[in-house]
């Protein structure tokens, strides 16, 4: 089974659900990713999913979708494209070190314990040029011990 098909199984959608797409491209006209990569068209991706074709991990929409739901808000069928993309990312294994650390914390504590996440993501943060923002983030600093959720 292609990965795109497996990804759809993680959502509330099946391939046939995209048959309702009218091809109006209103999603493309409001998509935030167009501010980053002009020419992005979620409708074209829906069409490929409907046809059972592949979607690649390095496509701008898959890489940069911010989950803003502007597409859903504009779509006559209110198709939740961000949730489809999230499933594609999951299936294509495109998690960033930060996302892995986030999930690691949830597995370990049942909650996101920020000191743990930051510690795990340090190499990524150093390499990614995040340290120059640290002075702007001082108001976020606080310390508390992690809470372990029972049964998680």
């Amino acid at each position, binding site marked *: 089974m292609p990965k795109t098909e497996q*990804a759809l199984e*993680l*959502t*509330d959608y099946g391939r046939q659900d995209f048959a309702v797409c009218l091809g109006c491209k209103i999603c493309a006209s409001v998509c*935030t990713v167009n*501010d*980053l990569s002009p020419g992005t068209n979620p409708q074209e991706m829906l069409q490929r999913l409907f046809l059972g074709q592949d979607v690649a991990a390095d496509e701008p929409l898959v*890489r*940069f979708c*911010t*989950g*803003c*739901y*502007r597409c*859903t*808000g504009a779509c006559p069928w*209110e198709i*939740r494209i961000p*949730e489809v993309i*999230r*499933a*594609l*990312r*999951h*299936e294509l294994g495109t998690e*960033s070190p*930060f*996302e892995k650390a*986030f*999930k690691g*914390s*949830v597995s370990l504590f*049942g*909650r*996101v*314990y*920020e000191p743990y996440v930051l510690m795990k*993501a340090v190499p*990524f*943060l150093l390499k*990614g*040029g*995040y340290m120059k*923002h640290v002075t*702007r*983030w001082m*108001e*976020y*600093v*606080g310390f*508390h011990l992690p*809470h372990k*959720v*029972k049964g*998680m």
Partner: protein
Amino acid sequence: MEYGYYPGCSLTGSAHRLDKGIKKVFAKQGHTLREIPDWNCCGAFEYGDRKELTGFSKRNLEKARGHFSEIVAPCPACYKNLKEADEEREFAVTHPLDLFDEAFFAAMKQARDLTGQVFTPYYGCILLRPKETAIQNTNIMEETIARFGGEVSGEAVKDRCCGGNQIFINKDVTEKLSRLVLDRSQGTIVVFCPLCHMAMKTFSGERKVVYYTDLLLHIMGEGGAL
């Protein structure tokens, strides 16, 4: 009135100011916030498997069962996930912005006004979309600012995306999108979402970024200048 309170992970950490602000505002109005016992993470936007994501919030609702009928969740991601997980509408999962109604302002003790100050009320995405979980009054922040004499800016960008949820994935994405909002607005940026706060704060330069609760507390006479 007593509400069940779901702070979520960021309000126990980097968004501690929003947590304190909400608690203070509610206390001043005579309301009690009681935390859902042993709550777990809602999964935010990080899980591609819809059932897995919903499962987190279903656990939280299970823990709230029998204790609360109305649950307040300030973080927009937590609020959306909790509300969507409550498929049978067993609880009233409410965002605090929907509780700041006419009765709230009528009971509010005003100590300051906002005359001569310019604000950009910035909602971002999840408070406004998808419509099933959107807040009721999508002008509440500008109405508050205007009510107390402040000037409102940035109406055209209030619902644009700041790219906050990409900040620790593709920082350049967040910078570009946040700057689009910042360049088309003026004055102090007023937000409710912890991710919007971080995105705006990172790139706002000299401009201040405050939570809506900071604004309310300022009007009520708490603290110094905004």
